[in-house]
């Protein structure tokens, strides 16, 4: 085996230019495959980072599901969840779980000359910080009194702080949200970037839910409420979901035959949907990139056929002095594998550089060990596949005929 490898290396070294050109196809193929995998990996990392603040032990009761797979029409006529229903659910789940209603909408925010458009304003309660993982980094969060008295106070995200205050201290300043003035009492800690079109958790403002309804609720005085329900433990989640569905149906007086007209959302559903999507994306990506790898393999096969034909006499000589079919076969298989492995190695280096670029510009992508192992295995596999037919042709040559070959 070691000898065959040496012979193969010698042959490749003897034909440097040709080897380099042949390798190019494999290099491109491997770069494409590796970058596809690291990009998929990066997207997943980004996703996890973006939604980590939601928490896996929280169920959100909303009018709509977060991910609509069916016809949107089916959900359009659902009634809004109003504050009365939210309070009823809170009362019914008393002692079983933590319940926090919230309403949100986009509004323009002004402070002095600075304006931010479409900032997510969330009317919530003091229990918000118990549901999510984010805590204030300066000042404090809303307290019970402010919530029940519907005070015009707010806690801003770091994105809002940067956008409006440009480095000055925002605490106790008064900002204008829509047409109402709110006093800043706290700043939330940074929660990380947004994923695709998903919410940016740093570009939002918390206000007391009563104050929200008062200022932005419109003439009906109520909006579409989301109810966050936090289970006491991860294990209690499944039971809790059943309880919530039962309670909500009771509150809404649904008859047994009627379908739910509300949705339960949780991070798992989102992650599951995302993973399915990523799986399909990765599959399509790999399918497309493996075409380039296939083209590379055809190039290697072609050059190996040329190599076998060119070296017919050499094969004859080797056979005359005792090379078996197997050793000739191995010699050429090694040669094509080494070509592909060289290409793979160069491809991995280039892919690592590209990954670093992606990492610094787009998302947290990294070249993981499993991806490297796959890349190396694929290179060797392609080499063997591309080499099999030419190697067999070489191995089956008749020694007498080959010795006569000019």
């Amino acid at each position, binding site marked *: 085996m070691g000898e065959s490898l040496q012979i193969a290396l010698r042959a490749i070294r003897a034909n440097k230019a040709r080897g380099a050109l042949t390798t190019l196809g494999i290099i491109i193929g491997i770069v494409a495959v590796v970058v596809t995998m690291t990009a998929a990996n990066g997207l997943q990392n980004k996703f996890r980072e973006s939604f980590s603040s939601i928490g896996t032990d929280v169920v959100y009761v909303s009018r709509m599901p977060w991910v609509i797979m069916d016809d949107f029409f089916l959900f359009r006529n659902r009634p809004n969840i109003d504050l009365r229903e939210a309070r009823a659910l809170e009362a019914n789940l008393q002692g079983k779980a933590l319940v926090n209603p919230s309403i949100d909408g986009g509004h323009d925010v002004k402070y002095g000359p600075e304006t931010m458009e479409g900032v997510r304003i969330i009317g919530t309660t003091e229990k918000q910080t118990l549901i999510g993982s984010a805590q204030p980094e300066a000042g404090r969060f809303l307290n019970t009194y402010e919530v029940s008295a519907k005070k015009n106070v707010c806690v801003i995200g770091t994105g809002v702080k940067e956008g409006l205050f440009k480095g000055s201290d925002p605490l106790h300043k008064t900002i204008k949200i829509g047409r109402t003035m709110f006093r800043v009492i706290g700043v939330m800690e940074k929660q990380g970037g947004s994923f695709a079109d998903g919410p940016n958790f740093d570009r939002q403002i918390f206000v007391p839910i009563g104050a929200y309804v008062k200022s932005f609720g419109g003439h009906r005085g109520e909006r579409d409420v989301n109810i966050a329900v936090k289970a006491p433990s991860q294990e209690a989640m499944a039971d809790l979901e059943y309880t919530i569905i039962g309670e909500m149906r009771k509150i809404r007086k649904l008859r047994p035959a009627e379908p739910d007209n509300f949705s339960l959302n949780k991070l798992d559903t989102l992650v599951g949907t995302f993973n399915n999507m990523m799986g399909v994306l990765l599959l399509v990506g790999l399918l497309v990139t493996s075409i380039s790898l296939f083209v590379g393999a055809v190039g290697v096969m072609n050059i190996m056929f040329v190599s076998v034909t060119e070296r017919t006499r050499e094969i004859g000589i080797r056979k005359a002095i005792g090379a078996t079919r197997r050793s000739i076969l191995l010699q050429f298989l090694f040669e094509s594998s080494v070509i592909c492995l060289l290409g793979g190695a160069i491809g991995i280096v280039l892919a690592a550089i590209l990954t670093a670029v992606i990492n610094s510009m787009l998302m947290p992508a990294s070249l993981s060990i499993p991806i490297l192992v796959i890349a190396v295995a694929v290179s060797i596999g392609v080499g063997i596949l591309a080499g099999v037919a030419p190697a067999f042709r070489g191995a089956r040559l008749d020694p*007498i005929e080959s010795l006569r070959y000019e």
Partner: protein
Amino acid sequence: MPREADPVISTPRPVSGSLSTTLSLRDVVKTYIMGAERVHALNGVSLDVARNEYVAIMGPSGSGKSTLMNVIGCLDVPTSGTYSLEGEEVALMSETQLAEIRNRHIGFVFQTFNLIARASVLHNVELPLIYGGVGRSERRERAEQALRDVGLGDRMKHRPNELSGGQRQRVAIARALVHRPSIILADEPTGNLDTKTGDDIMEMLDGLHAAGQTIILVTHEEYIAERAHRTIRLRDGLIESDQSNGSRARNDARPRVEASGSRGADDGAALETAVR
């Protein structure tokens, strides 16, 4: 490729086997199918070669000389008949077994040297040992020794194309010798060399024989064949004569060019050699 056989000239002279027999062919027939025709390249050849014999095989083109050499060299197997080499029956062996036999028992020296151009001289000589599974250090040592033996100790790292024809043939001899074969099978070893260099190579083969090596020589040249101790002449796939050179009758030698009924690929070379 040999052509039609003429059964009229049929004087096979089987030599009885002795204790020191290296190879023994019995009624070897080799038939090729060329298109619709069946061509008998060897028509029933029986032959024994003892250890340390020095045999020349001669014959016109189409006499079956090349085919006989291929059979003796285990590059080809007979259609019928038996061939035992060092007590092993070769005729029924698989291709892989034949490769092993060639590796262990046959040292080829070709007219066109047949060295691997892209490999160093040393690597060329090492090759039979590589295929024979000899370990790295022993292999290196033996290859270097073989090259020193043929006077090329200072050319080991060179490529074959950096050497003269005579030097290349000496590399080929070193490669043939390095695995200590039962037979050196030399096919027109001086055919591509000038007379002086050819003589040097023949000196070397003579020396190897003197040291105990069994040598079979295939040649067109009378003066080359005379160096051997026994000359076997083939004609139309049969052994025409098999004589010890000590008592060889001169009139046995027939003009080569007229001997063959039709022209073969070898004829050009034969003419060229004859003219020279």
